[in-house]
């Protein structure tokens, strides 16, 4: 084991993250690179690398062009464009860092410029699905190598020597034979005249020469600004003459405004106007819900004005949505056959003939994202032109939606991407930017729309609610011979299409149909469920309920057969192999199966690694317990061990968490660690407290007092992160989301070990206090 080499620089960090000895030899050796490189305009290259990713199939694909992403000023400052949205993953640092690495730029002389929304120019910008490093590691390397080559060619010409004799090293080009050197700044003008080299001929750096990649010693580019209050988030945008708006939206999804009385609101000091906001019929995609906006000279006045509004709503068809009744519906549906989405062998017969059948019914309620920055956007619409400043995960999608909503050409819309104060999938939906655009158009002035925390919790795009039922049939020896998993949950697709009652392929592929266990008879089913509120992506999406159910069931089988949890888990995973579920077009996070198969050798490896480093089986004090869980999501493999302590009043704490991640070839292990540390907190939050519930169609929670999240005094005392070293050609895979799913089941398995109580319904709430 090697400690990461970051002495002194990152105190407190090196203690908790360990990278297994990495074979640095030629991480990308053997990459055959093809693809076109059009000089006049950015081009979408077709991916034809040693590993193929789904990047080229994303809207607008990938653009590999140094002139789009890199500029060098005469003073030597290198500006690199970050075209993905920064919501805390470190992507605004990591992707430009890849470019800097390849072009031999000195990071201290690099500036990062945030791209506006323009997918034709920059390629796909939808920062979602844990895709950024996965899709852009190689393109960013190629962009950097192109820029380096152009600088080298310019220097060679200046000196009249063959380009093969010169080499870029740390922000200058060197001719070692003559000892001559020229800085990047001195070469900038000439390099710009060089033709952009073809991708096929680019020579990428050998991994042993990396200065930044895989090292983890670079802090995020916004670190100083964040610690001094200068970092600019959506709400921090201020324009001359800007108005401040807060909107009262229908309390029930699909509800409509009947009437409103603005008089009291208009008497609030600072309130200038009260106006209706256009809403769209449900299912409304990302379009605004409509309602009444209070326009004021500051946000405080707008909120006070909104509180004074008298509003009458027609709740519509969802006015009866009740979480207690709906849970019963979901659970009843899970007890009957549903749409079969995967079938191998004969699970029915095998369950009937089994020596023992273990049934687990699991329930996971709606969750809200509640990023610390509530949704907010600024818009300035003048005539047929619109400019937006907003924390959006999908600036390209936002641009498209603003153009359509206002009925103007997409080319007339500029979307400026601020920092995102958290995203977690909520900010993939740009309804708040559309609200700002509509209001600005009507007012003829720049407007900031600020969502309050109550708005965020009550009018969001919630994580679905689901009942998961698993039946495991065991033979006389205790071997699992049958597995039936029914998953019942409203689909995200319901936000886009009326009448949706089944999960979409991308949801079925998240821990249901891709289940990796080696069992002869498998049936995965999806009974019907209709949505009664807006459902959206939430960090790791359907993997949360599926991993909770599947990994809890592993604990239950171990419990029923008297075996060790980890041994049971490895037995179920079975032999090292590529799992090919009998599912037509199994969704694989948009990635081809060839480069991203379901590889049980890797799944086993993270279990074994975390068991070794996390000291599985160690003796723990009375009242403590260890639990383990593993899950593959976003084409990464993650295993977590949780140590829990439950006191005699049923209060739980988490002294230690250990997580092993195999995310393939990686860029910045320091940010991987921070993502995994954070995933443990988010996992603990949803396990302990996470529940959005409805009564009479309305969300019952309002703010952080009744939708609680974990605070520092209850957070894990220590989270250790272990990163599996990639093989030389292992493609990069997701990091932002996959840390979340295994946490809750590992915790629940640990609680069983500590107390003998099996929690099957989240959140834990007061269940341990009984």
């Amino acid at each position, binding site marked *: 084991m090697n400690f990461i080499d970051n002495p002194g620089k990152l105190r407190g960090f090196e203690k908790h993250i360990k990278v297994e000895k990495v074979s640095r030899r030629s991480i990308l050796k053997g990459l055959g690179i093809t693809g076109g490189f059009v000089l006049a305009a950015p081009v979408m290259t077709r991916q034809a690398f040693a590993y193929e990713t789904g990047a080229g199939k994303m809207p607008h694909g990938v653009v590999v062009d140094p002139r789009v992403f890199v500029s060098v000023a005469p003073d030597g400052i290198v500006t690199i464009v970050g075209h993905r949205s920064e919501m805390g993953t470190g992507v605004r640092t990591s992707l430009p860092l890849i470019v800097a690495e390849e072009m031999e730029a000195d990071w201290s002389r690099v500036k990062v410029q945030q791209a506006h929304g323009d997918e034709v120019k920059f390629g796909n910008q939808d920062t979602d699905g844990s895709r950024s490093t996965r899709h852009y590691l190689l393109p960013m390397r190629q962009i950097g190598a192109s820029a380096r080559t152009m600088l080298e060619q310019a220097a060679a010409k200046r000196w009249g020597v063959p380009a093969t004799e010169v080499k870029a090293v740390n922000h200058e080009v060197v001719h070692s034979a003559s000892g001559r050197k020229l800085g990047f700044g001195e070469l900038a003008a000439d390099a710009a005249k060089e033709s952009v080299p073809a991708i096929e001929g680019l020579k990428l750096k050998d991994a042993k020469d990396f200065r930044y990649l895989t090292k983890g010693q670079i802090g995020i580019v916004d670190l100083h600004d964040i610690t001094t209050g200068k970092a600019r988030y959506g709400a921090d945008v201020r324009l001359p003459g800007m108005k401040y708006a807060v909107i009262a939206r229908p309390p029930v999804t699909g509800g409509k405004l009947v009437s409103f009385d603005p008089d009291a609101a208009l008497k609030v000091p600072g309130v200038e106007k009260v106006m209706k906001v256009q809403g769209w019929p449900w299912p409304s995609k990302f379009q605004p819900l409509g309602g009444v906006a209070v326009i004021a000279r*500051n946000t405080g006045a707008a909120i006070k004005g909104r509180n004074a509004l008298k509003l009458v709503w027609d709740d519509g068809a969802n006015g009866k949505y009740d979480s207690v009744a709906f849970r019963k519906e979901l659970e009843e549906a899970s007890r009957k056959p549903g749409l079969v989405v995967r079938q191998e062998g004969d699970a029915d017969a095998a369950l009937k003939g089994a020596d023992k059948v273990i049934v687990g019914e699991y329930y996971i309620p709606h969750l809200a994202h509640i990023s610390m920055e509530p949704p907010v956007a600024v818009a300035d619409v003048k005539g047929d032109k619109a400019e937006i400043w907003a924390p959006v995960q999908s600036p390209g999608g936002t641009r498209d939606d603003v153009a359509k909503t206002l009925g103007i050409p997409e080319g007339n819309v500029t979307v400026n991407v601020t920092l995102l104060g958290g995203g977690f999938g909520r900010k993939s939906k740009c309804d708040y930017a559309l609200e700002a655009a509509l209001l600005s158009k009507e007012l003829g002035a720049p407007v900031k729309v600020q969502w309050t925390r109550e708005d965020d919790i009550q009018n969001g795009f919630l994580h679905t609610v689901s009942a998961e039922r698993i039946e495991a049939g065991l033979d006389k020896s205790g071997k699992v011979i049958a597995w039936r998993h029914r998953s019942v949950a409203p689909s995200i697709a319901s936000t886009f299409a009326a009448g949706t009652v089944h999960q979409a392929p991308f949801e079925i592929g998240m821990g249901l149909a891709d289940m990796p266990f080696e069992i002869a008879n498998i049936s995965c089913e999806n009974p019907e469920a209709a949505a009664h509120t807006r459902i959206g992506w939430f960090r790791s999406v359907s993997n949360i309920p599926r991993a909770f159910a599947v990994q809890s069931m592993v604990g239950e089988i171990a419990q029923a057969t008297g075996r060790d949890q980890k041994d049971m888990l490895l037995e179920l995973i079975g032999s090292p192999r590529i799992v090919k579920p009998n599912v037509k077009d199994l969704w694989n996070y948009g990635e081809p199966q060839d480069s991203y198969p379901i590889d049980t050798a890797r799944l086993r490896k993270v279990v074994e690694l975390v068991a070794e480093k996390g000291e599985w089986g160690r003796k723990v004090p009375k009242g403590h317990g260890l639990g383990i869980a593993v899950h593959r999501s976003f084409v990464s493999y993650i295993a977590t061990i949780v140590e829990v302590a439950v006191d005699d009043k049923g209060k739980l704490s988490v002294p230690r968490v250990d997580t092993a991640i195999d995310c393939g070839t990686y860029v910045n292990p320091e940010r991987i660690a921070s993502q995994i540390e954070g995933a443990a907190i*988010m996992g603990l939050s949803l396990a302990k407290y996470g529940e959005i519930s409805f009564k009479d169609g309305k969300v019952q929670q309002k703010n952080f007092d009744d939708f609680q999240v974990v605070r520092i005094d209850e957070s894990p005392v220590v989270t250790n992160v272990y990163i599996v070293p990639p093989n030389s050609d292992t493609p990069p895979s997701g990091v932002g989301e996959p840390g979340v799913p295994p946490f809750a089941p590992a915790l629940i398995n640990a609680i069983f070990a500590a107390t003998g109580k099996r929690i099957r319904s989240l959140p834990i709430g007061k269940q341990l206090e009984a």
Partner: protein
Amino acid sequence: MIKVKINGQEQSWDGDPDLPLLWFLRDEAGLTGTKFGCGQALCGSCTVIVDKEAVRSCITSINDVAGREVTTIEGLHPNGDHPVQKAWRQVNVPQCGFCQAGQIMQAAALLMDNPKPSHDQIREAMSGNICRCGCYQRIENAVHLASTGV
């Protein structure tokens, strides 16, 4: 006319005296480093220091701080080199960063009151500040580092 000193500068306000200090700072004075997270003193994103005490500016009216000294993240140190800020950077605390101004102000107030807090004291004092990204382990380490010398 309400007068208040913010980061050493005299500011005045003749609007609604009930206006929360948060919105005066952000929308009227243009000091956007202080963040809005909940509006109910539940998350700590809006923490500023009034005289020597950490205060939630979202439920503190501008009238409540009349004649007092308010310090925001922008005024904590002229170069951003307060020991807490330096420690934050050394430990690479932030992910999205949105709650960090409030966290830093809370930590700075803690160290004024208790220069050598124990880990338990750090966890207790910082428990009013939510970080949804989950940077708590690093926050605890950074406050400890700031208290022991950066």
